[in-house]
């Protein structure tokens, strides 16, 4: 099962290395990872998408993350009401004939053309991962030259703050 796990960490040197090293050491497979500043100075937010086989492994992962000195909070938000987005840049072959056709494909996805060359278009699309996947598969027949994806970043919807998420280091009683 795919899980989205967010992690608030102290912005200290080596923190990313320490955390990804733990994933590697404990045999967890990171599908995507995004890191950026948070709303509080000195704290960063990491969002991981991880493929995990069972609940026991999931519990172990969240515990190992919590154990890191630099980690302030860990939340598994997969089953919460969330907004999750990623951004993709796709460079696709596009001669004179296919340009209009490609424009027609990307419009329903709210994709935009951000660069044009003689033979290519570069398209930017934002959305849930499956939407990005769908657009990419539609563009494939034209010949994709390059893809760059950011990986998922996510927030809880509306009024919920991440404080309300079940703290994964506490135990069910």
């Amino acid at each position, binding site marked *: 099962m795919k899980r989205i796990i967010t992690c608030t960490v*102290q912005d200290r*040197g*080596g923190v990313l290395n*320490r955390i990804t090293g733990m994933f590697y*050491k404990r045999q967890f497979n990171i599908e995507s990872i995004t890191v950026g500043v948070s709303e509080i100075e000195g704290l960063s937010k990491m969002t991981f998408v991880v493929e995990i086989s069972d609940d*026991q492994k999931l519990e*172990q992962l969240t515990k190992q993350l919590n*154990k890191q000195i630099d980690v302030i909070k860990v939340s598994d938000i997969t089953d919460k009401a969330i907004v999750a987005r990623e951004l993709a840049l796709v460079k696709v072959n596009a001669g004179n004939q296919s340009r209009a056709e490609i424009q027609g494909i990307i419009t329903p996805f709210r994709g935009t053309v951000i660069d044009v060359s003689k033979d290519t278009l570069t398209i930017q699309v934002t959305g849930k991962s499956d939407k990005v996947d769908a657009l990419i598969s539609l563009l494939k027949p034209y010949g994709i030259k390059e893809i760059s994806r950011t990986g998922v970043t996510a927030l809880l919807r509306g009024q919920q703050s991440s404080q309300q998420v079940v703290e994964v280091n506490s*135990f069910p*009683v």
Partner: protein
Amino acid sequence: MKAVAKQEVQLKEELGTGADLLIKALVDAKVEKVFGYPGGAVLPIYDAMFRHEFPFEHILFRHEQGTIHAAEGYARVTGKPGVVIATSGPGATNLITGITDAMMDSLPLVIFTGQVGQSVIGTDAFQEADVMGLTTPITKYNYQVQNIADLPRIVNEAFHIATTGRPGPVLIDIPKNISAGATDGEYDNSFEVPGYQPTVNPNPMQIRKLANALSQSKKPVLLAGAGVTIADASDELTAFAEKYQLPVVNTLLGLGSFPGSHPLSLGMGGMHGTYTANMAIYEADLLINIGARFDDRLTGKISSFAPEAKVAHIDIDPAEIGKNITTEIPVVADAKRALLALLNGELNGPDNKEWLEKLEANKKEYPLWYDHSDELISPQWLIEQIHQASKGEAIVATDVGQHQMWAAQFYHFNKPHNWITSGGLGTMGFGLPAAIGAQIGRPDDTVISILGDGGVQMTIQELAVMNDLNLPVKVFIVNNEALGMVRQWQEKFHGERYSSSLLTKNPDFLKIAEGYGIRGIKVDKEKDVPAVLEDIFSYDGPVVVDCRISWKEKVFPMIAPGKGINEMIGVTR
């Protein structure tokens, strides 16, 4: 060696450089001993120690590996953090084994490594190594100091992290320009670690659940690990076991946390544990693990480990709970506080009279056994003799392998903090420097190092430190001219193909001892052993005893790799 009363330390010099700040920070952390080895990148630190006339004792080892194992031994027997200083590059990389060992066995260490100057970090400078990258997976935490003014805070924080929660090694990498650079005279060591707040008090609900499970249990077993010793909870454990008549199995690292000669002790569990201990775990209906981590050498095949039991696990590290064994009752807490909560709670004791009778019968029927060797010394008997001659009160340090298992089986530890062994990592070369560190930490106690003829050669240079400080460590080389445990596995599981495991051209250990200015004695007949032991235990200096045993000796009973805890071989003759 007598302990000298410590007076309030006054620093001799102004805090002019980063190294001076470091010295003050170590004094503030109440450091008494530092295990170290100098080198280019730590010259400013060594100079500052000298200028301040050594406000703590610095012990020079002969290899960085020696410093860190000594610090581990020191930490194990004193409960205080072991402090290590080594230089950059090779100095730091020589510490790697010891840091990993301390991480596995939860030993509090604070390690300082020199680093090349900040202006050349990343240029493959002379004696540069990526110490942060190398040590990140094997430390509880690590720092590279970026600003001189941060040093006091980082040192203070490092001692806090190393010694609280589940203890572990913390490393501080100090670029040379930081230790040599001028300060602005400020000294601020206040810190905050918002991401690190170990849970020490047990959740009362979980304690109640545990108490209920205990009341209903017919076949309860306590499993006591090193966490009991680290939490200084041996008295509470003993009181709890006695109050409800609960049998106790110790892990290898937990030996001594419950008195080995206590009627409720079932001895050690696991691969070379007692039949009684392992079958108690196998048949138990309630297993209460206190401060052990369900290591694979304890559990054997997971599906055969405590298959009938409800499992409760008290541990200060939540990540250990449920890691290897499915746990019904998790208790995240300091072992002492959890045991006190259980002792103070209202609880009907279990009805386990039949269970205790059964275990008692097992103990009588299937004790640990050995045969006397025809010509050479039988190693198990030797350990028993050492136990007697040292009145069972010595601190014992070992390496890893056959001698370690014999020591664990036959030196019945009755007190905590007296057993130093490399459990998790299984490090050869650990026992000699660890014993030296222990003797430095507890100068008035008898310290014994039981080693193999293989492991002793990995750190034998540290005999120089024993001679230098006249440390009365008694070193026993259990010499079978083989890498005994490797050879035993080759005999049992690899068709007696002794591939690179026989040490038939060993050096003359007596001459080596003599070369280091240490008394050496060779003993190869059982009849000579008592006199030798009497002699060396009344001798106030270091001794190396080369004890000859047959290479055919094996450690029994045992659980073969991949087998269950109920499938021991060699239980009886």
